[in-house]
């Protein structure tokens, strides 16, 4: 039986064709485009701003329209937990770990109260 027709391989083939390749194409293309980008150029600075803004948008979407169990926690508690994390971040000299611990602590406490 060939590798392509063996049913045991079907999920892997499906994953590669419809999950891996459509995602990986951007990384592949970027390696070539990046050849033309110098570290000292304005384009390089601009691309960093675009990537940063986009990721902040991902965070906003995860908080505003969450999935699964997180959706059961009220919006103000989700936003409050982000703010608590931000406060801990500033209090503990830009510590990411402190932000995660305080934010998670508040969120899980809220989830225990409301769900």
């Amino acid at each position, binding site marked *: 039986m060939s590798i392509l027709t063996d049913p045991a391989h079907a999920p892997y083939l*499906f*994953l590669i064709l419809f999950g891996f390749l459509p995602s990986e194409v951007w990384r592949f293309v970027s*390696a070539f485009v990046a050849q033309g980008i110098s570290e000292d150029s304005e384009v390089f600075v601009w691309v960093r701003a675009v990537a940063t803004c986009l990721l902040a948008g991902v965070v906003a979407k995860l908080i505003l329209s969450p999935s699964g169990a997180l959706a059961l926690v009220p919006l103000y508690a989700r936003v409050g937990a982000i703010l608590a994390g931000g406060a801990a971040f500033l209090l503990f000299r830009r510590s990411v770990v402190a932000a995660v611990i305080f934010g998670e602590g508040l969120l899980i406490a809220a989830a225990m109260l409301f769900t």
Partner: protein
Amino acid sequence: MGGLSRVEWALEGVRQAVKGPAWIVAVALTGVGGLAREAGFPFGAAVASTLLIWAGPAQVLFFGAVAQHVAPAAIAFSICVSSMRLLPMCLSLLPLLRGRRTSLLTQVVASHFVAVTVWTESMRRIHDVPRDARMAFYFGFAHACILATAAFTGLGYWLMGDLPTPLGAGLLFLSPIYFITALARNAREAMDWLAIGFGLVLAPVTSALAPRGFDLLFLGLVGGTAAWAIGRKLRARRGEAAA
């Protein structure tokens, strides 16, 4: 740490990842394993999805769509659109990683490991690594992250579904709280803070106005360009003041 060899720098990358970031991304993606099982995929395919796709949102989208019997072409399309964000991430990291003799092939391989955690953490840490050792450090760091995450995806395949709600909510909250603080940790100048602020504030606007799936792309282009333009003006003004 100037006297370290490349192998030592690779191990330093592993060490820094294991001190925190690798575990955060690993735990945050535990849920993907459970989604894969619900969608009917074998254990190996769940783990392979982390090794191959290596992008949380795309993996969630993929298994969620398969579970809902979405047409394969439509799945591929939405994955493709959602992973577009990897482009500016790779473009802003690769020029920092490469040395004068780094081959194109090495950069193609390096680009595979770019995802939110590896990107945010590398963007900051790489400045402390000598140019010739950057790829070595990066590969050490990235491998530790992806392998830890693959292990946790496998763990999630068997464990998920039985979690009490508060813990499930906490698990889903890990990505946003970590991403936003990691971005803030990386902010070096006014432009970075503006980009973060615009992203948070404008996200509801673009998701209401832009075509479905393309909202983040619009957000990045509009908010990122605005942050860059204002940041540039501020930099120029400071330059004048200094002169």
